[in-house]
């Protein structure tokens, strides 16, 4: 916030210095314009035709002798020419929580858009730390040399049975460092969400240095890292160059590299943490992910040390990674009493079905695609979870064994719009039960511990009884689960 204010001050300063008399002239006011068609010289009271920013989001300009005000959806910015204009929130797409430097132009998107010219304030745009990120700082406070560039990796789009061709994408928030020939670190920063980075450093003239990208997100808003099976961060280094060189230092990790998928794993963590932020989670706990090509570890999450292990062939398996991150969310921000062990989707202990099914729901909800996909050579396997029904039995009790697929299917039905099912839901509504009710259930019904019954109880506690009819159609009609609709939220009619 402090930086946003600073940036706004910079913006405002630039706008003020660029103000001109109406008509754009630099005369003494233009009061001698006697044309009958000309607007009164001071009709706009000094507001220029090219506009000026009056606040972070308000733009005024003189149009046909009248002042027009525009409320910007993103921010009001002033160009080097002095002209002001509105930019939309779309400029934040490549910024991220730590801001971005483009030369000495600082862009921050902390709640709103703020774009400022650091140089106009005698400062430079540079990385400060992993909490604040990029900011306008005094030149004397950073290294004298500067290197910038873009870090990317090759994604492979996941679809049922298919991994798409390699496609370069930015390493959002990725850690970047500058190292000397002895592997000593001269500077460490985080890339913006468009993969761009700026590092300031000091090094002896002519020293050979190199830029290295790491499979880690250092931002406190996205604390995640990906290590190999031995516990080493994956890293990819560029060619050495002479310190002080100004050419951009761009890096691209190929999908064919032995460590290429590490950045895909990291990107899934970034996605999951941004999703958590959007659900109101203020402080994120670090997650330590482990992936190595060829490793046969299986894929699982361990709450004791927040470690998330992905099998060697799951590097591009976004759904598997997000499913495991769903377990991380259960561990830190929701709850599960999953007894664990091997499982294959067939009816199982309802606490396991909740633990696994709700983790799968997290993956489906984040992607907004109702498919669980586990890709491997030969295509792997997948299951569609919107139209398919893994029903329970109305003859069984509320504590009967159920399929984890049914839990995921039912939760996704409460998340997506009505159409394929009776419930017109949203991620927010389902997420409210997952994040708010499940950690502190008002009653333990069904099997002792957290299971689907607690989710349904929570639905009515959080959202009232207005949805009784559509939920009954969903739970009894579609899934044949004998929920009694008499939970702590009330008794459905």
């Amino acid at each position, binding site marked *: 916030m402090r930086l946003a204010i600073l940036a706004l001050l910079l913006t405002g300063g630039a706008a003020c210095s660029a103000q001109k008399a109406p008509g754009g002239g630099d005369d003494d006011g233009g009061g001698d314009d006697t044309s009958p068609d000309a607007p009164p010289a001071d009709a706009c009271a000094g507001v220029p035709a090219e506009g000026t920013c009056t606040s972070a989001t308000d733009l005024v300009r003189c149009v046909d002798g009248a002042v027009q005000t525009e409320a910007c959806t993103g921010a009001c910015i002033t160009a080097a020419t002095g002209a002001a204009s509105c930019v939309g929130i779309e400029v934040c797409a490549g910024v991220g929580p730590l801001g971005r430097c483009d030369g000495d132009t600082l862009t921050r998107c902390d709640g709103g858009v703020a774009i400022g010219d650091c140089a106009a304030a005698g400062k430079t745009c540079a990385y400060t730390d992993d909490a604040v990120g990029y900011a306008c700082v005094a030149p004397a406070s950073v290294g004298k040399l500067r290197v910038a560039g873009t870090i990317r990796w090759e994604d492979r789009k996941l679809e049922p049975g298919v991994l798409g061709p390699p496609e370069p994408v930015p390493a959002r928030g990725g850690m970047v460092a500058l190292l000397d020939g002895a592997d000593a670190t001269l500077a*460490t920063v985080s890339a913006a969400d468009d993969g761009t980075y700026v590092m300031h450093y000091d090094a002896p003239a002519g020293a050979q240095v190199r830029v290295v990208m790491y499979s880690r997100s250092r931002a406190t808003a996205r604390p995640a890292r990906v290590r190999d099976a031995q516990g*080493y961060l994956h890293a990819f280094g560029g060619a050495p160059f002479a310190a002080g060189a100004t050419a951009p230092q761009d890096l691209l990790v190929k999908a064919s590299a032995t460590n290429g998928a590490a950045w895909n794993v990291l990107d899934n963590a970034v996605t999951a943490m941004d999703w958590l932020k959007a659900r109101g989670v203020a402080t994120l706990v670090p997650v330590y992910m482990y992936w190595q090509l060829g490793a046969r570890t299986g894929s699982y999450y361990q709450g004791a040390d927040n470690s998330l292990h992905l099998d060697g062939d799951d590097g591009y398996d976004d759904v598997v990674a997000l499913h495991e991150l769903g377990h991380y969310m259960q561990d830190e921000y929701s709850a599960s009493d999953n007894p664990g062990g091997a*499982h294959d989707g067939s009816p199982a202990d309802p606490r396991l079905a909740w633990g696994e099914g709700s983790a799968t729901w997290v993956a489906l909800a984040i992607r907004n695609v109702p498919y669980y996909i586990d890709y491997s050579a030969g295509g792997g396997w997948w299951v569609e979870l919107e139209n398919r029904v893994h029903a329970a039995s109305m003859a069984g009790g509320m504590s009967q064994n159920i399929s984890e697929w049914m839990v995921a299917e039912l939760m996704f039905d409460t998340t997506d719009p009505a159409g394929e099912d009776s419930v017109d839901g949203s991620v927010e509504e389902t997420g409210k039960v997952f994040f708010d009710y499940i950690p502190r259930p008002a009653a333990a019904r069904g099997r002792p511990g957290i299971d689907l019954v607690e989710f349904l109880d929570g639905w009515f506690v959080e959202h009232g009884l207005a949805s009784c009819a559509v939920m009954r159609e969903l739970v009894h009609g579609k899934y044949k689960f004998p929920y009694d609709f008499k939970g702590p939220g009330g008794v459905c009619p």
Partner: protein
Amino acid sequence: MRALWAVLALCACQGAARDEELIVHAETAPAAASCKPEAPVAVVLDARPVGGDAYAVTVRATPSRDVAALELGLVLPPGATVRGAERAAFGATASGASRTIVVTVQTAGPRAGQLTVVARVPVEGIAMSRTAEVTLGTPEPPPRTRSYRTADGELAMEVRP
């Protein structure tokens, strides 16, 4: 002449020993620690060099629960061919019962390639699969790497282009 025979005999023995050492093996099974849903079947894959860039391949799949069907298939390295059935479909298979296929895979040359076996079993109406994979031929040299500690002490393994 006796010395020459001795040398030939030694070479033959060494050749046989090398072949044994070159058997490549892979196996996967439902992991107790794994929390992702997994196909309830264990797969073992052995590939034994038989000369001329060919391999005798044995695949054994053993479901860990009764399954209505079991299918085995091979994904060959580029340019490779197979003598024998590349795919085999078995009927209902009881938990613990094994299904086996034996084939010969002829690779296109000594350069490495991945041979993968895919075992598919239906569970809850879903064709779940498990793979096992071996490298046939001479593996690619590992990438150039260097390891060190980052500024905050974390270990890193850097791949160089």
